[in-house]
């Protein structure tokens, strides 16, 4: 059982909600990313989602777009992702790592999968591939890496079924019509849709996009198996990367974790 499945199973048994924290690989630089991942885990994040920088991240709002640009300016890409992943694995061999990125970077570096020999990476989430398509058919996953699919408020029932069938790891429910970091959550709709997904899904359903405050996190954790926080963290990384004093990120994660516990 890979780390992600194990973590989600453990949380479920303990009746706890998962907290997934997102940051962009190489923002502000490789060493700091490793430190930041450690900080997020130490502060209460259960799972880390590492954004793989791409020039044209069409699902991202301005905050995460800028982080992609900063990382690209440091020449960080999927090809150098193990610089981060392996350094982190030296410190922590328990916390699940999910790579989240865009199809073109994964297609141009399929070696990623061969290079994952010690299973440092647990899961892959490709934002711009339809959920009913199988990443394995594109050569970008194998039996040890599970794949996370997105379901959105606009996904109709028949697609929910086929996407749910294709997901291992967890299902990422996109809580709003929009890009990452937007602010138009409709909790009633989210509730109804997650209930529908749960009818078909054998894996947990986590909610992300647009969750900022601990109140948002609590509301969404109540109707899902956990929440994903991205833009707020990335904004703080941007704000504090000059001083490299990231204490408030740790405090923020701890607060969110408490709110959903």
């Amino acid at each position, binding site marked *: 059982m890979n780390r992600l499945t194990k973590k989600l199973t453990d949380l479920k048994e303990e009746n706890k909600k998962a907290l997934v924290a997102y940051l962009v690989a190489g923002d502000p630089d490789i060493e700091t990313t490793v430190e930041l991942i450690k900080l997020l885990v130490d502060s209460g994040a259960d799972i880390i989602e590492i954004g793989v920088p791409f*020039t044209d991240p*069409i*699902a991202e709002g301005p905050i995460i777009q800028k982080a992609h640009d900063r990382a690209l300016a440091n020449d960080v890409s*999927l090809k150098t992702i193990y610089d981060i992943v392996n350094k982190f694995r030296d410190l922590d061999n328990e916390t699940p790592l999910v790579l989240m990125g865009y199809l*073109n*970077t994964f297609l141009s570096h399929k070696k990623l999968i061969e290079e994952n020999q010690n299973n440092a990476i647990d899961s892959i989430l490709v934002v711009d591939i339809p*959920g009913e398509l199988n990443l394995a058919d594109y050569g970008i996953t194998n039996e040890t890496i599970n794949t996370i699919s997105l379901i959105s408020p*606009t996904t109709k029932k028949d*697609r929910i079924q086929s996407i749910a069938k294709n997901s291992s790891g967890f299902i990422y429910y*996109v809580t709003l019509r929009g890009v990452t970091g937007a602010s138009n959550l409709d909790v009633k709709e989210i509730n109804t849709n997650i209930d529908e997904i749960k009818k078909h899904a054998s894996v947990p359903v986590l909610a992300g996009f647009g969750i900022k405050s601990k109140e948002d996190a609590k509301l969404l954790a109540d109707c899902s198996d956990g929440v994903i926080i991205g833009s707020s963290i990335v904004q703080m990384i941007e704000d504090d990367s000059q001083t490299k004093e990231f204490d408030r990120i740790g405090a923020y994660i701890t607060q969110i974790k408490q709110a959903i516990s």
Partner: protein
Amino acid sequence: MTTNKHNWPDKDGFFGEYGGKFVPETLMHALEELEKTYNNFKDKPEFKEQFYKDLSEFVGRPSPLYFAERLTNHYGTGSIWLKREDLNHTGAHKINNTIGQILLAKYMGKERIIAETGAGQHGVATATVAARLGLECHIYMGAEDVQRQSLNVYRMKLLGAEVHSVESGSATLKDALNEALRDWVTNVDNTYYIIGSVTGPHPYPMIVRDFNSVVGEEVVAQSKDLFNDMPNAIVACVGGGSNAMGIFYPFIDIKETRLIGVEAGGEGVETGEHAAPLNDGTPGVLHGALSYLMQNDSGQVKATKSVSAGLDYPGVGPEHSLLKDSGRAEYVAVTDKAALKAFHEVSELEGIIPALETAHAFAYLDVLMKDFDSSANIIVNVSGRGDKDINTVAEIDGIKF
């Protein structure tokens, strides 16, 4: 089975291995809805009647196929014919597609229209049809293009559209597309996205091709009328590739006609500073489709360079990628310098100021005409007129108004 006939895309939206629907999940339903609407309406007599009526009465179609006598004499061989898309209302082929897509938007009950634009021609064409139907219209345009195509920006504003200047990335057409997609993800329920080229996720490459194929259909008929034969070659510029696809499509199974797409060679293909993915790219996924793409070995999309805002795009429509691989169409590139020379030559020889995009197609005649004897008929698709480029060319020529 008619296996030799070109019959793409397949049911999943692929042209051979190219194309597809590689978008965030939020857009999948909208694409399915669009495909269903299009398939439902495209062959209905009332839809076709309305489309052709609008093209005739509002756009001014058919556009002439015009014998370019002095240009022909200039090369001293063959006969050069110009398909005059520059004479369309709003000044380019782009209006053909927007006339069709706005009808789909209306049938789907969408009240808000968005579009991306590079040179501004698609933005103007979209703003025009949106104004005609009284629909709210938002145009995304790279900040650099807003600068170099200021005339078209003002035209869009006059037509009641809101123009959003996009500062992210390279601030050109690709970034305008990114931003339009982000808008669409956010407002998908009430918004119709009129993509302006044969790019993007399925069904767009098919829809835009079909609407623009009116150009090629007219050329088939006009060729019979004017020289009682099919042309030896058709030349069109290729950015995303909509004007080329529109004129090529009815000729794909007419094998005696060579189809030649001319990409933006910028500083020269060998310098890497260009916008010629079919000449110097590899297959990759951008803006929802797999197609030839200018990218580095990490799968990052490269910045492009072209004097022409409309060709300044790192990707290309997936059907062109298929036609390249199959060898049915030839894809070449000409430099900024060659395009500018042709811009001046055609203006002086023919009394037609072509768009800088179109000037790329003309520039290739220098090479192409050597292949033909005096009996040959060569067609250049004059995809648009050059009024919008006056400031750019004047600046290059060191002229201040």
